[in-house]
């Protein structure tokens, strides 16, 4: 067989996607000449569903399309994979987070300019998934780069009422000053009125 079967491609795509795929997304994997009919793709998904009956995975139909997930009978064991604390964040991630905090709203390109190296998509993804950072808009220049800012969750996590509670840059530059003083690290029980509340 020269070109792999439709079923193999659909299976691999569903398992690799890491999230739900719509029929359209699956169809988009094929060039125009080789693109199968929608019904054929649907048939293949149904076939896979049957194949998976005695496997550790299953196909779930969710709003966003079809997703391969761990069969729930085995999920309790598999979930233990993530029991351990995730590894510590890399230096790069911390640098990028701190730049977003202090220079927001900021584009990826601006971060790269300051750091002198490319910003990894994974880091942005991690920060976004943790909901510490989000896209608040796009700069109206060619490419319309996303503008990143920190979130309320970020402030909460670090026990800050607002960004103003972060030490000023002048202090950060001076290593002595930074550690001689105690930073406001204790979580504010009164979490007071944060500025973000004003928003709503």
């Amino acid at each position, binding site marked *: 067989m020269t070109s792999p079967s439709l079923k193999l491609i659909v299976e691999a795509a569903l398992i*690799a996607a*890491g999230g739900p795929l719509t029929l359209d997304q699956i169809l988009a994997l094929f060039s125009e000449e080789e693109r199968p009919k929608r019904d054929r793709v649907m048939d293949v998904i149904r076939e896979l569903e049957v194949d998976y009956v005695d496997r550790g995975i299953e196909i779930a139909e969710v709003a966003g399309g079809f997703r391969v997930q761990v069969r729930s009978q085995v999920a309790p064991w598999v979930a233990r994979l993530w029991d351990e604390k995730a590894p510590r964040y890399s230096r790069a991630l911390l640098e990028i987070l701190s730049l977003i905090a202090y220079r927001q709203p900021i584009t990826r390109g601006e971060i790269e300019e300051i750091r002198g190296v490319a910003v990894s998509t994974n880091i942005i993804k991690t920060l976004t998934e943790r909901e510490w950072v989000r896209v608040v*808009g796009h700069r109206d220049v060619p490419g319309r780069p996303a503008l990143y800012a920190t979130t309320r969750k970020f402030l909460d996590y670090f026990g800050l009422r607002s960004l103003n509670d972060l030490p000023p840059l002048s202090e950060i530059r001076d290593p002595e000053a930074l550690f001689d003083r105690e930073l406001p690290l204790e979580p504010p029980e009164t979490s007071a009125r944060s500025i973000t509340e004003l*928003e709503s």
Partner: protein
Amino acid sequence: MALESTPMGLQQEMPFAVVQGAPFMTLPQDLYIPPDALEVFLDAFEGPLDLLLYLIKRQNLDILDIPVAAITDQYMEYVELMQELRLELAAEYLVMAAMLAEIKSRMLLPRTESEDEEGTDPRAELIRRLLEYERFKQAAEDLDALPRLERDLFIVHAGVPPGFIQRQPPDVDLRELLVALRGVLARAQLFTSHRVEKESLSLRERMSQVMERLRGRGFVDFAALFDFAEGRAGVVVTFLATLELTKSSVLELVQSEPFSPIHVRLRESNDQESDDIAVA
């Protein structure tokens, strides 16, 4: 030793170079290269050893038996041409030029007895380095050819149904964050220090908040951006944030006629919002 070696005329048939995938041009004997092409050309080399290897291979010569005089002449022509064109030339190229000149001069001298006993060919060190570099040049190509993640290999990643995983993301101490920032600033010091310090963080924070409020909403009454309960300082910060955002082309202010209400909106179509978060 086979100093007479390969006739130089051979090279005329050879293609000049393949620069970044495209056959570039043929190189006549006089080494003419258009100036802007030379820059590209120089970029295509990973240093003097790489350039030398290229010169040697172009003529189908054996590294073990390079005619130093000829190669030196060619190398010098390149270097001189680059200098003439005032291209930025890494110092390493000049060091190599000096080394070649020295080898060349030693090759011209009659070999003395003592040298023979030690078995030292003036070219020995250069040849050793060329061979060594060539191995790793090859190794880099082999490594690049290996199937690798993101390009040829894709790890699968099935989800776990909700409710089973309680993954604890790593803790971060605020100090770690500040130390990291200090690291970046120390490296980027030159061009951020002045601008950053003047801007207060509350302004930056407010910029984010203003954008957040305008997101996906089309035109909004300018006055609605302000929360008068915040008092004078708060209003001023919001005002400055709006100006700053307008200046950096993030916001658009519109007033249809004098004294009519001012409207403001994000300069982007709403359908484009949040597509960056959706990186799966």
